[in-house]
């Protein structure tokens, strides 16, 4: 447990909180990379996922992409892209890799959100005379929001974890202190920054969990929740909580 005391001492040391390479600077680097990649990935994956979910076409492609992407070793991909474009452009290269890694979960969240909707709900919308565009925006997108945020959540976590590895190609971020710590055999520094990384991941996860929860449309929360198809566990949880309250 001594090591943890050392790590907290490192975290508390004011020297590490100012100047270049300080903890706040590392955190903002980390968050900047994460935000860039997630926004870029969302811009690609959300429209694509909605198109797949609404039309039902290309489902196999989406499943194949998300399956194969899981096999991609993020660490190797990072090195590969940086080598391909050259060390000078390593920043953009890293953002491209992070974007590639964030696309599959967001895509899956977007299209699974639409696919999980009860067909009868969509048919009813069509029967009352909504256009396809209205069905998408007024029915499918709101009902698919919780799963979409679920996808964004795992995309963000994936990216936050991979940015840690970006330090191995000299891109800073919170991984920098781990890489430097390994080189210098400074265990307090490594452990301190590992704790920071874990805290950051947990905070982001909690934030998105909150968004996910608040994304359930009010009408769904109010009742008839058993008719809205989401994942069974969530469906049951929603049904139970709305039944008891």
């Amino acid at each position, binding site marked *: 447990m001594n090591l943890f005391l050392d790590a907290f001492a490192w975290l508390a040391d004011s020297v590490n909180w100012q100047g270049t390479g300080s903890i706040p600077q590392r955190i903002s680097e980390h968050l900047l990379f994460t935000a860039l990649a997630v926004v870029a990935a969302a811009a690609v994956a959300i429209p694509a996922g909605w198109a797949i979910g609404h039309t039902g076409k290309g489902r196999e492609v989406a499943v194949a992409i998300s*399956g194969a992407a899981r096999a991609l070793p993020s660490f190797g991909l990072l090195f590969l892209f940086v080598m391909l474009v050259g060390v000078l452009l390593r920043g953009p290269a890293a953002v491209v890799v992070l974007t590639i890694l964030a696309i599959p979960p967001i895509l899956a969240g977007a299209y699974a959100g639409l696919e999980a909707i009860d067909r009868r709900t969509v048919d009813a919308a069509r029967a009352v005379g909504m256009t396809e565009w209205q069905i998408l925006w007024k029915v499918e997108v709101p009902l698919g929001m919780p799963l979409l945020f679920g996808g964004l959540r795992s995309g963000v976590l994936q990216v936050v974890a991979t940015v840690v590895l970006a330090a191995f190609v000299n891109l800073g971020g919170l991984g920098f202190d781990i890489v430097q710590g390994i080189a210098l055999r400074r265990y307090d520094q490594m452990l301190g920054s590992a704790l920071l990384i874990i805290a950051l991941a947990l905070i982001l996860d909690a934030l998105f969990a909150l968004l996910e929860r608040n994304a359930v449309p009010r009408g769904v929360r109010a009742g008839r929740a058993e008719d809205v198809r989401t*994942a069974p566990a969530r469906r049951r949880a929603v049904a139970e909580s709305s039944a008891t309250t």
Partner: protein
Amino acid sequence: MTWLAANWQQVLDLTILHLQLSILPIVIGFLLAIPLGFVAFRYKLTRGLVLTLVGLLYTIPSLALFVILPPLLGLPFLSAANVLIALTIYAVALMSRATADALESVDPDIRQAATAMGYSSWRRFWTVDFPLAGPVLLAGLRVVAVSTISLLTVGVVVGVDSLGYLFRNGYQRGILASVLTGVIAVVVIALVVDRLLAIAGAWLMPWTRPSKGPRRRNPRDDEQQEHGPEKASQATALARGEQQGAPA
């Protein structure tokens, strides 16, 4: 190509090593997840507890976990045990959730019928619930296998050689072919293992093979009539698996 021709022996050795190292976390993760998943499925109180805990564990980035485990467990920092335990934690985290979902995918009427026929709960679990949960369990196991194989490469940072060695060494020495080979080799063995698991699943669970005759329908669940039971549960498992995207 010339690089590969000169180094194929090393690539082969690392591939074998990689497979050897990934088997243990996958198997142990699967075994530990059965009781955890059951507890999460069976009792409301433990459900929240178990699923929240595994969810939090899964959130921890791999490199941070490699750093934090040794002082917690009294292990040396540069050791295979460190990496294997970390990967097992991820495997358990993913698989417990999949197991809970899988058990939930079993039709409660079947469970009730088994109870009515006099099955003890132990026997019912192993002979009714567990096999019927098979397809969703398998989907979970495939996700676990693929992400474990891919994550193992990060272990090279703490001195555990795997195909990740080709990335790190290749990057440091500026050999693009080495990095590329490493990435391709990891993807190939992950997809091969995934395929093998699917084949093994079809062999172990003959009832999940696509049949020629008309599918028996479950009138109580009209949502499932459209897709057929397994497709619906697969879609759920997929969405769930994706929500738990692999930590890098």
